[in-house]
């Protein structure tokens, strides 16, 4: 089993947030990253916009909770959040790895293009909304309408799913073990093939979460809503 990316060691640069301007904190993070240092950010106080747009090679651990958009626009950084993340964590990231130790607020991984987000607790509503690629792994339960309009990528929930799961899905996939409160419009549960399960296990394995005994439900689009080019008026009355 390969090891999940970890950041933080005795040679870390420690950067304090407190009430400092986030722009200043960000400049400190980039300077330390350019010097090849691992970074520990302390006293985060749930401030917004921490660690946005971090480049590849950057390794940051946020001690405590962060506010909105942490790790957004990530292009390859490895980010660890000790506790909770606010709304839009990892939004529009294209590569890299984000670990959230606690709860992830609404729209974690919104519109993400690539990389992996690993949530150890539950996630709020609309995890992976409009995502186009990458993976979101949630050890707990995914909230209301998770996977809403996901164009690609995978959301993998190990602790069940809330209401309106995978509503209006496009080509994304939502994988769930545990209870699903109810399915969204046009969401269809399928039995995954052994090959598809192996793909998901390959995502979970590096996170130490692989378990071959799981009973998976793979949710995809029923394609009833894929009528945007239709000239038949009846198609528009299907909802």
């Amino acid at each position, binding site marked *: 089993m390969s090891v999940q990316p970890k950041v933080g060691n005795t040679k870390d640069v420690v950067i304090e947030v407190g009430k400092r301007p986030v722009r200043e904190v960000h400049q400190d993070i980039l300077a330390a990253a350019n010097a090849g240092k691992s970074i520990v950010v302390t006293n985060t*106080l*749930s401030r917004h916009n921490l660690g946005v747009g971090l480049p590849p090679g950057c390794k940051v651990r946020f001690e405590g*909770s962060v506010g909105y958009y942490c790790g957004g626009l990530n292009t390859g950084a490895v980010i660890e959040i000790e*506790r909770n993340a*606010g709304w839009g964590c990892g939004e529009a990231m294209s590569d890299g790895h984000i670990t959230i130790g606690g709860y992830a*607020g*609404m729209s974690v991984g919104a519109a993400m293009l690539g990389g992996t987000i690993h949530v150890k607790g539950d996630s*709020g*509503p609309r995890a992976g909304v409009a995502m186009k690629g990458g993976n979101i792994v949630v050890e707990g339960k995914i909230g*209301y309408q998770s996977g809403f309009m996901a164009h690609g990528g995978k959301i993998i929930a190990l602790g069940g799913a809330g209401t309106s799961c995978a509503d209006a899905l496009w080509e994304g996939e939502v994988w769930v073990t545990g209870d699903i409160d109810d399915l969204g419009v046009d969401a269809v549960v399928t039995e995954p093939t052994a090959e598809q399960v192996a793909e998901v296990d390959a995502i979970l394995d590096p996170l130490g979460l692989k378990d071959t005994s799981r009973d998976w439900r793979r949710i995809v689009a029923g394609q009833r809503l894929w009528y945007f080019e239709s000239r038949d008026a009846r198609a528009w009355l299907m909802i």
Partner: protein
Amino acid sequence: MCGIAGRILNAPGAVGRDLVELMDAQAHRGADSTGFAIYGEPRDSGYIVRAMGFDRNNLSKDLEDFRAILKDQGGDFIDEPTWDNGSSAHYSVRMTVTDPKDVERWTEAADKICERLEMQSVGRSLEIIKDTGGAYEVADKHGVRDMIGTHGLGHARLATESDVRPNASHPFWARPFPDVAIVHNGQITDYYSWRNRLEHKGYRFLTYNDSELIAVWVSDRMKEGLSMEQALSRSIDEIDGVFTFMISRPDKIGFAKDRFAMKPLVVINENGEIAAATEEQSVRRVYEDEGVSIINYDGPSLQGIWGVGNRRAAA
């Protein structure tokens, strides 16, 4: 995008100071105006009135006319009114008045001069203070940090569908119900149809702000016999739009969230004391210790009520 906050203390304390901090941390959510609803020690009789006048040069005349209406309705001033000494054309005035014969009728009568002097709250303990500007600015002008009480609400407003005026700021008083206030983050899309229905029942609205409507909507349901819990539940089913609101009464604060889970609410409930806000960084102003856990009410169709314990200082 507005910012809202609620605070409950276990005993009368610096609720004004806490609300100012809760709102300053959310100043970026609404730069237009800031407001506070604070419940101090309740009076056994008589009301505290907070009102806003729109021309400081007419202050004496406004108060004279207000008093004449009050006397006509069977009440009078208890203490001499006090007002802010700011330089703005509008001014805020605080009055204590003896009980008029009928609060509803008196409110209606007093509202005849609302274009000059508008009542913003009436209550045994509720006081609503609101003005344009940020939390610290409003707090400095109106002495909010020094206000002692058990609970209250705060609001930072980003105006979307009605005017930026000091009196269009939140919180809103649920006219004419004494001691009821609301703060709201969201948009009510069937505002005009509900307003119509409520106006037919005799309610009056002084702004075109949808939050004023919700305050009256919930209070009206409670007047009809529903509990607050039932009224909040109905509001989620019947009011169309995206919203998170908190409504306060002398003994409780309730909240409701729409069916679409579009507006945040974060709560710390520590030993019966409550700090609630739109953003986590706001409640962290009051509880910096990360060991104090946070509840994220992120899901759809949520509601809840927090009770207020000891409202009077120990004898």
